[in-house]
């Protein structure tokens, strides 16, 4: 039995349709991540699952219970907000214990569970501080602690790391991964950072304008994107797309209009080059250098080379594609194989 | 019963006396009385409002101008007042005072005390300048001409604050002096244009000899006391402080706040005349106890009777200089209260009988005025109409506008006539 099921779920704000019919099954213990560009409806979908937004049409099942009409307090889910949404007037201990207290548990039991959560999340040292006296990462941990204590059916995360600075984000990402390993709970996670999505998810749901563009494991999405949107959305720097007509010597499936190839699957060299161009700009990043090559009508292509390349802007280069790694797309943008 | 008693005598010392009388009454009758001070200028509105709310006090101490209008509006229980007068004996009252409150089949209220308005002037300065006492328009104007020298000496301090009763009183006095009245035997009548213009021009002249500002009794007295005014119109209530008996309003003409010098230098005129009315007129005010329609009638009647009998001495002693007894005595002793009054001390912080302070003929002049004092509409039996006109303050307003130069005299008379006609 899936832990959570969405059936043809829609959301309308007045006349505007924001979620355009989403069907999804999430298994017990799965880590599912919603990604997509800003405004595609990730948060809205998550909030509908939480019960914070009304579901305009369709059904949301938790286990096999229809929860569509239930208020949030009855759904038994826990949510971690982007802004942490801690209760600023309560100590960390009270924040973490609050859901239990609302549920009317006896103090002894609350204390036990709160201490347990504090141990798991290493919060012990600052249980009596107020949220404002905590750093961003600590606050995030408190917010997670507050969700853990209730043993919820599923955890919902809405961009939990986007308010942290880069270094801390890496660290917290690691901790969330660990937490999922430890709890083995169902987690639904919204982000627009594809690194987070790729590294954390069991399954990624790519949303595009309120519709699901593709669902799959990170590797599936990276290696076999179902359409142009996913192909370009996943991977950094993004996949190069060029018109098939401008590529020499590739055997392409029927109907292929565009060819996609990732920067790391191109090598430089004159012999058997699929495309020629001139180096436009070099972006030295230490380990690698990304070379932007201006290929005239084929557009600007990015190539990944070693950090210590000797190329200079203006050099003429040929680009050789790793032919097993090219992707073909038809005129509707769908992958052809 | 607990009675509520509204009084316009609201100075703390005077209130204290009234409370004392109330306490005596309580001891005698078992009814307690709550004495509530009401500012005289608010009295009309507040009584009407309280009437509408069914929340009238039991007894109101009020000036003449309200007696008949209130009786008509149903605020006063005239039958109760009539009964009180009868119980006390109509014959024991001064007939003039009673007459002013008479209505068909009885009396609107019970007369309590009265006084005559006086023109107070600096006799010493008049003498110095060889002036006649200010008994007429002409004399006043002549004195203004000679003595007006601001800011050391203002010729006059005329009332110009239009929402103060004081201005109504002074104006009525000046109008009466020239024989002008807005009411005749048939009710409202047109003002006589020529005579009214004389009044207006006269009033404007004395207003121009006054300091600027909205003036009323306060400035009049203060300026006179500081020796900066040659003439004012005031009530006899001034007599005690003029003699330095009251610390909160001391004569400041010299450094001694208890000085009697100013009193000695002061002359008084009650009967005042204008060019169109050489006989002149005095202006008197009578105060009444009104029993209201919402009163606990029996207790209220008892209270009024007490105040006019055993408590009458105390009532008069509030300020004997301005409260001449209109009930002269009882059936047994027809001059009991008049005699009592003559012995009462005036003053607040220091006390002395009036006779110690002023010459007897001056006192006689003051007291005697009450019997001949007039008001608009009394002779004609149209006092009620006249009171309404006064209460509406239209005359004050238009005269003030005339003084401020908004209209000329003739236009003002026309305006006055139409405004007076507009008072239903």
């Amino acid at each position, binding site marked *: 039995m899936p832990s959570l099921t969405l059936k043809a779920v829609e959301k309308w704000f007045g006349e505007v349709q924001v979620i355009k019919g989403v069907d999804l099954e999430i298994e017990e213990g799965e880590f599912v991540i919603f990604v997509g560009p800003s405004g595609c409806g990730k948060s809205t979908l998550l909030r509908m699952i939480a019960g914070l937004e009304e579901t305009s049409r369709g059904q949301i099942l938790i286990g096999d219970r229809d929860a569509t009409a239930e208020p949030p307090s009855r759904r038994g889910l826990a949510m971690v907000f982007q802004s942490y949404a801690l209760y600023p007037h309560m100590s960390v201990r009270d924040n973490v214990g609050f859901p239990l207290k609302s549920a009317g548990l006896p103090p002894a039991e609350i204390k036990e569970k709160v201490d347990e959560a504090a141990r798991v999340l290493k919060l012990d040292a600052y249980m009596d501080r107020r949220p404002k006296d905590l750093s961003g990462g600590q606050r995030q941990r408190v917010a997670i602690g507050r969700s853990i204590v209730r043993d919820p059916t599923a955890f919902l995360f809405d961009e939990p790391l986007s308010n942290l600075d880069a270094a801390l984000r890496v660290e917290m990402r690691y901790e969330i991964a660990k937490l999922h390993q430890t709890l083995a709970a169902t987690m639904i996670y919204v982000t627009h950072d594809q690194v987070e999505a790729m590294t954390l998810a069991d399954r990624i749901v790519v949303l595009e304008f309120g519709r699901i563009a593709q669902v799959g494991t990170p590797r599936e999405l990276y290696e076999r994107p179902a359409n142009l949107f996913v192909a370009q959305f996943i991977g950094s720097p993004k996949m190069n797309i060029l018109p098939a007509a401008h590529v020499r010597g590739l055997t392409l499936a029927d109907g292929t209009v565009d060819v996609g190839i990732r920067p790391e699957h191109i090598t430089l060299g004159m012999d058997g080059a699929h495309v020629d161009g001139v180096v436009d700009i070099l972006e030295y990043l230490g380990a690698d250098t990304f070379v932007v090559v201006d290929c005239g009508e084929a557009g600007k292509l990015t190539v990944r080379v070693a950090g210590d390349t000797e190329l200079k802007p203006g050099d003429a280069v040929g680009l050789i594609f790793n032919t097993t790694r090219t992707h073909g797309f038809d005129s509707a943008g769908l992958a052809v194989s | 019963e607990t009675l509520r008693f509204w009084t316009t005598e609201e100075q703390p010392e005077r209130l204290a006396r009234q409370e004392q009388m109330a306490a005596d009454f309580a001891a005698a009758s078992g009814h307690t009385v709550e004495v509530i001070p009401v500012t005289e200028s608010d009295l009309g509105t507040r009584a009407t409002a309280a009437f509408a709310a069914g929340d009238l006090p039991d007894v109101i101490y009020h000036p003449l101008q309200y007696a008949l209008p209130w009786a008509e509006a*149903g605020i006063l229980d005239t039958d109760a007042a009539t009964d009180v007068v009868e119980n006390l004996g109509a014959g024991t009252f001064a007939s003039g005072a009673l007459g002013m409150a008479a209505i068909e089949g009885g009396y609107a209220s019970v007369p309590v005390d009265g006084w005559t308005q006086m023109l107070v002037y600096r006799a010493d300065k008049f003498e110095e300048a060889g002036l006649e006492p200010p008994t007429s328009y002409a004399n006043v104007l002549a004195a203004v001409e000679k003595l007006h020298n601001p800011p050391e000496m203002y010729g006059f301090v005329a009332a110009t604050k239009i929402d103060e009763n004081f201005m109504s009183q002074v104006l009525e006095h000046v109008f009466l002096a020239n024989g002008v009245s807005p009411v005749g035997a048939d009710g409202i009548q047109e003002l006589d244009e020529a005579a009214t213009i004389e009044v207006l021009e006269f009033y404007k002249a004395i207003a121009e000899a006054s300091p600027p500002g909205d003036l009323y009794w306060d400035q009049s007295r203060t300026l006179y006391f500081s020796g900066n005014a040659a003439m004012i119109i005031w009530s006899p209530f001034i007599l005690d402080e003029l003699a330095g008996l009251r610390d909160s309003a001391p004569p400041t003409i010299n450094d001694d706040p208890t000085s009697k010098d100013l009193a000695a230098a002061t002359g008084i005129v009650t009967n005042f005349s204008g060019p169109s009315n050489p006989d002149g007129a005095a202006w008197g005010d009578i105060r009444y106890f009104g029993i209201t329609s919402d009163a606990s009638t029996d207790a209220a009647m008892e209270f009024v009777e007490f105040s006019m009998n055993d408590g009458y001495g105390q009532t008069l002693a509030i300020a004997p200089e301005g409260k001449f007894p209109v009930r002269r005595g009882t059936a047994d002793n027809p001059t009991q209260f008049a005699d009592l009054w003559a012995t009462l001390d005036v003053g607040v912080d220091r006390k002395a009988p009036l006779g110690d302070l002023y010459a007897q003929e001056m006192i006689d002049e003051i007291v005697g005025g009450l019997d001949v004092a007039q008001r608009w509409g009394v002779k004609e039996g149209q006092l009620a109409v006249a009171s309404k006109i006064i209460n509406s303050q239209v005359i004050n307003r238009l005269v003030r506008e005339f003084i401020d130069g908004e209209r000329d005299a003739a236009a003002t008379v026309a305006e006055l006539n139409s405004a007076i006609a507009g008072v239903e």
Partner: protein
Amino acid sequence: MSDAVPPKGTGPLARLEARLAWGLLLPTITAVSLVVILPLLAIFWISIKPVSLADLRAPEVVLREDLRGSPAAAGDEATIRYRLRNSSQDQPIIGVTFTDEVPEGLEVLEVDPRCTLEGRDLSCDLGDWEGGARETLTFPVTVGQAFLDNALRPQDSEAKVTGSASNVLTNTTFTWDNFARVFDGDEFWEVLWVTLFYTVFGTVGALLFGLFAALLLNKSFKGQGILRGLYLFPYVSPIIAVAFAWIILFDPFSGSANALLIQMGVTSEAINFFGERPLALIMVTIFEIWRYFPLSFLFILARMQSIDTDMYEAADMDGASPFQQFWALSVPQLLGILSVLFLLRFIWTFNKFDDIFLLTGGNAGTRTLTVNVYEQAFAVSNIGAGAAVAVVIFGCLLLFSAFFFKFISQEEGL
């Protein structure tokens, strides 16, 4: 898969929320409509009724009874007297009757034709009464011993009076007189002019002074907090206290302001600031500016402090001088709050009553519409006319509000 039209109706969660919302609002709505909406309707009603303060009390029959003659022994003669009158001079009372009990021991000798006596129960029917009617009924009686023993006077048993009169407030007499009276003559136009002068200059002045003060305090220095607090004094103090302070300060007769002006040689004779046309109007307007500049100041300051300092730094870099920055950056940035303030203050100044009432009582050419309401309703006791002025005010108000919402919704997104 999905319909292209939004679903109709509201979902269960939304319904729950709406129900809760109305529940929370209900007490407020009730209270406010009781005290705001209802009175507003009442104002409209009263404005077309010929009603004065005294009419609020419906006419009634006032009755007094007593025993005339002082009977000392059984067999003496006396009269029971009933005096009745209509408490109103102009309103009729219909169907006046009364019943009473004659005390034991009094033998009624003769009964008025309008009355009947059964046993000791007396009942009289006096028919319909005009306004101002009075009636005295006398019943000659002989006194019996029982009366002397009981010492029960006739007035000790209360007489029951009936009689119906219509209340002006609820009957169907209507009149346009109130409005006629309000619009009659030059007075209304003068009042309107005074109101507009007061409102426009009061508002603009307060805004300008507020702007100046805000510019002064829009930098941080020691004592800035104290000054800010100080500059708010005029606004937070009770109106009655500051109004009287002004009256005393500007008293023509013993006010310090005049003394100062005379001493400085500005004027040789005391000026009657609050008693002279047109100075009084100017003075009340200045008072209004003085009292309300703190408010504009506060709002403008808040707005100024929310302006990004980056913008001024950018202008510094761009080489703009302080005055250029003021005109090119500050003024346009403040235009929004200034116009909102202007509109709101305009409306509230228009509505202002206390200030003028306390300062001049509406005299010397300072009578505004609101003061006129008071004058008509209370000083002249003509409630109907007061209500008519109030209706006029309300009309103006609606006009302004329409303008306000049209404008403000763009400015502030209300």
